[in-house]
């Protein structure tokens, strides 16, 4: 028996009728046509389906759509500031080539956004920990870790007066 839920996705409210067994991942992809979340293992290990639930990275393959009612859901489609534009994290991933096939990339970027929202100056170990639930088969992670460090550095430098903190200057990127 379908159930009606109100999903708040990227700041917009969507009323959908779904089977109770439909995962949030399938609902986002098949009902809302938000294809940036990807199915990898559908058992909660690879992390390719990661979305942010109230800002925290969650596996959308392990959550039913009906459980997501009332939460603020952020998908990769919600990060770009505008058509053709990139968030600082997205741009940093392009700068370091922190991907190859691009399949795990949206989830990696969401995990990075969640990390940087709470920790503007993460260490390498903290970056590794933050993405350790997201498997990338292409890159060996090096350029992903670099992308997140670069994004952090650039974001720390935003709107600082020149010379305020030399170590955190965006110009060093």
């Amino acid at each position, binding site marked *: 028996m379908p159930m009606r839920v109100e999903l708040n996705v990227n700041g917009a409210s969507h009323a959908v009728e779904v*089977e109770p*067994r*439909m995962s949030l991942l399938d609902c986002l*992809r098949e009902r809302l*046509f*938000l*294809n*940036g*979340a*990807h*199915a*990898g*293992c*559908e*058992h909660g*290990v*690879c992390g*390719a389906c990661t979305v942010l639930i109230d800002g925290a990275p969650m596996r959308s393959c392990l959550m039913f759509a009906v459980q997501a009612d009332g939460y603020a859901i952020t*998908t*990769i*489609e919600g*990060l*770009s500031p505008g058509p053709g534009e*990139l968030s600082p994290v*997205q*741009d940093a*991933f*392009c*700068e*370091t*080539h922190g*991907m*190859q*096939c*691009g*399949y*795990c*990339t*949206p989830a990696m*970027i969401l995990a990075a956004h969640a990390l940087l929202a709470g920790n503007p100056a993460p260490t*390498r170990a903290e970056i*590794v*920990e933050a*993405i*350790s*639930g*997201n*498997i*990338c*088969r*292409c*890159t*060996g*992670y*090096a*350029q*992903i*870790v670099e992308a997140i460090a670069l994004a952090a550095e650039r974001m720390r430098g935003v709107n600082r007066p020149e010379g305020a903190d030399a170590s955190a200057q965006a110009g060093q990127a």
Partner: protein
Amino acid sequence: MSAPASHFRFVSSDRRVREDRRFVVGKGRFAADIVMPGTRHVSLLTSPYPAARIVGIDKSAALALPGVHYVLDGRELAAATAPLVAGLDTPNVPRRPLAVDVARYAGEWVAAVVADTRALAEDAAELVTVDYEPLPFVLDGEEAYAPGSPRVHEAHGSNVLLDRTFVWGEVEKDFAESRHRLAFKVRWGRSSTVPIETFGVLASWDPWREILDVFASIQMPRFPDQVALALKLPGSAVRVHNDVDVGGSYGVKRGIKHAVLASFLSRRLGFPIRLMEDRLENMRGGDAHGPERNFDVEVAFDDAGVIRAMKMRALDNVGAYAGRSPFQLGKPISAIVGPYRIQSVQYQAIAVTSNKTTQEAVRAFGQSPTNFAIERAIEEVAWHRGLDRLEVRRRNLIKAEQFPYLIPSGTTYDSGDYDAVIDKVLAQADYTGLKAERDRLRGEGLLAGIGIAACLEPSGANSTFELLLNPKNETTTYTESCRITVDVSGAVTANIHTVSAGQGHETLVGTVVGEVLGIDPDRIRVVRPDTLSSLPSQSPVGSRMAIMLGGAAFHAAQKLKARLVAIGAHDLGIPEERASYENGNVSDRAAPQNKRSFMELVTIAHRYFHRLPPGTEPNLAFSHVIQVPMGGKLPTPDGRVQIYPCFSFEFHLLLISIDPDLGKPEIRRYVIGHDCGTVINPKIVRGMTMGGIAHGIGAALFEEFAYNPEGQLVAQSFMDYLLPSAHEVPEVEIVHHVTPSPHTVFGQKGSGESGYLGAPAAITSAINDAIRPLGIAVNSVPIKLAQLGDMIAAARGKP
């Protein structure tokens, strides 16, 4: 030789990868993202037995479920289609998408259920009942090879698909004349590349247009051709769409049985069909396992550890059906002596069927296991003679002045300076300091070892090894293509004719065309027409695209440039030899103020026929189909032939420590020296190298498709099949060296496989350096934690 990169304007510069922009915003176009109205979904019913006769299939309960459209079994499919193409001449080992009367491995697809949704199709599959009669089965490759073993394919008469022995050079004489000989075994466990995107296909037959549209996450030569053959359709009735992003492949995304199944269902039922593997289907029934190979190696050498001759027997357990995988014993012939001067080789290549999942091409197409065996040979010789492992490698290496170098199996290595790469790695790592650090760790009570491995990466992909293993095959053509157009507005568009799985082919072609034309690569559009609008492509296999697609793009751009020069010279009224081309503009060398701009030349080509040189075709559209360099010859009767054209070299050096109580290896330092000739895009080459090492770490320490004695695959999820996470992959330092290839347009070689080719050997080398003081050693991968811990505990006399 280090070539200066400075004479290139865009090639070798650290430019962004153009594909990345769509991926970071979630706008990749993967197979599962493509929607067609009215699409129905497939789930698969699989065999619970490793071998069983299918006595009956009762579909009635499933078909009674509302929303279920069809249950297809193997007999119906086989009656309407041809078997899938096999590489070897093995007509009695037919391979089909669904089992026909006999299931030959646990997980093999027995029936396909079509329903309105995937979930409903899975529900319905549970209602299909199959009556099985279990049969004897065989899992181990050596048992399958032995006479009297249960036969996977009764009609074939045995389990042996391939058993050929090659002798290249005076092997027996060299053995007789050598002072020392050593025999040992090496094992490479069954693993694979396991991309994060499973295989998926959407197929749609239009009975009025009589055309089949296929959207699939493929990486496969001859894919459209093989779909058409299986479905008994003309090639022009199968349209495969190349503008699909593939979520990782590294060889395995062949999906031919999936595509034939979905396409048949679409023709049979009249609506689009989607088949997306779930993870279990991918790992168990997707036919995407990698090599599982036993080596028996014997080497003959002198007091100094210089190896003169080698005998290698390689037995690969390819699983239940043949496919193309036995050829993974063929490609290693192109580098059968690795980077070493071994004078003569006897090589026995054996492929056997067993009741395991069917193998498919995996990164480096069989070269990684063989390189592992060759590197183990070097280390065993050093250990046997009490010599330094690095010094023994140095003594055996092909030297820079010996190139081009002909190896016994008939391939000539193009170029290299292996010692220079090693010198750079040792300097980067401070080798003396690294040894001191190892000894310091040992002093702290840890087991510690330094790992060393060299490897050659054959690149440029030629299929000549198929001829060595299947004399009925005479194909010597192996192509790639590019087509470039300039429209009336002056916009340049390059067409490429393959799908990509993260290799950055659009960036490659943009860079190459920009380099030739002197135009900013970002202004060059790169598109992928469907296969009916395409020129030949053999797809991105065998580290070939920098060489082959880069070569095709280069030559097509040269043709365009030549036409612009001809138009400009004619319009300027000067001989072509006097015309100079720069950044799209053509000028008179003798009077540089006399020139035609790029836009003027384009306008003449498109609109001013009266100003075109006589006999010139209007428009600007140029194609090039490139044949693999050095290719095109048949093998000699004794099995010698040039296989791949170019050979990259890598040298891996690492430090590992092992807590003796836990048996857990920790990589503390990893340095790789890398020479793939001229680098076209540094970001891409670095990523490929790093990713290959991570994949190699998985194959060395974590990943195995293990079976239990009952024939069931025990690694059925990512909780059993362990992919390295960011925690398991260390920081890796890369040192570059450039030895250009003489056979390619910019001196480039391939770079997609090097990390995977060397990392398993290097890690095993390090572990052996760490545990040999205990009197133990390992010559097989994966070296799993529990196994290593038990070995160490036993050697230390602790339970």
